């Protein structure tokens, strides 16, 4: 993974637009957040291998970045993205790594399913 170059990532988002893609998206504060701090409200969500098509997508911000994908009748949105890269199947991986190096958010796209 490399720090996000918005122009580069925008090009990549464009290449996946208008076709059926598989999506992995997650946000997490860790399963132990409320154990270490009982006043912490733990929340998170993930979806893996959702199949969808977006009309267009944008990456915006000065870093950490936000990405929004416009669907025919809906949206995909993630914020806090800091890094991007690829897996061995050419999936586009975008992730937000916090100051301690822990993943806080992930948004991943590809034309084949994730394992």
């Amino acid at each position, binding site marked *: *993974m490399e*720090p996000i170059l918005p122009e580069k990532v925008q090009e990549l988002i464009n290449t996946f637009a208008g076709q059926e893609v598989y999506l*992995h998206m*997650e946000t*997490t504060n*860790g*399963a*132990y957040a409320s*154990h270490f701090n*009982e006043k912490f409200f733990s929340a998170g969500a*993930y979806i893996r291998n959702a199949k969808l098509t977006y009309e267009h997508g944008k990456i915006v911000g000065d870093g950490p970045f936000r990405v929004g994908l416009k669907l025919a009748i809906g949206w995909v949105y993630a914020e806090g993205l*800091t*890094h991007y*890269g690829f*897996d*061995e199947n050419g*999936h586009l*991986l975008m*992730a937000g*790594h*916090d*100051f*301690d*190096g*822990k*993943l*806080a958010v*992930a948004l*991943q796209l590809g034309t084949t399913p*994730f*394992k």
Partner: protein
Amino acid sequence: MTKTMEIEQERHVLVIFPHPDDEAFGVSGTIAVHTGRKTPVTYACLTLGEMGRNLGNPPFATRESLPDVRKAELQKAAEAIGIQDLRMMGLRDKTLEFEDDQKMMNLVTDLINELNPSLIITFYPGYSVHPDHEATARAVVRAVRAMEESKRPKLHCVAFANNTLEEIGPADIRYDIRHVYDKKLEAMKAHISQTIWMLKDLEASVAEEGSELHDRFNYEHFWTYTFDEKDKVTEIKS
């Protein structure tokens, strides 16, 4: 504090945890003692910790490469404490409580039937914090509870929820594992992707006699699970 006791000789030890590294912190010393005596130990690790958050900044792994990283670490840790029968059960991190409960129980029953363990080590249901830990613990309790009482293996559980002490009291088992601490440390170090942030400070603190960490890492604690009024695990809803 519970008095330190000797680790009993077992016929076969079955360790069941959901994540690579669950074995390292709480029980790797005890495992090393069993393997040191040539007692067969099977470790069934249910997932590869695919959803782990420690990926580094700058990142050393991605959401997609993490499972392979953790698999290699798990194998290395198992080797460090002498486990020869390591089984990766192929379930997915953070999904265990949503799996079919009967399937989860059967997974444990099948292992018991195959291995005939005299001792099972897992988490204590209700007091193990992570939803995957809890789902694992429930499956083990249900599988053992379904056995004829005289045939049940002993069930030693790890508990670490903040309310453990006030609700179920202190551990009834306390082992001194100082003589195998080097192996325990090696197992913890094997899971470097998960432990690097803590190992930095750990070694010095553990060495400090009388500190909390000294006690936590030189002694291992278990709560014996009993199938009486303390057993709060429900039957599977059909």
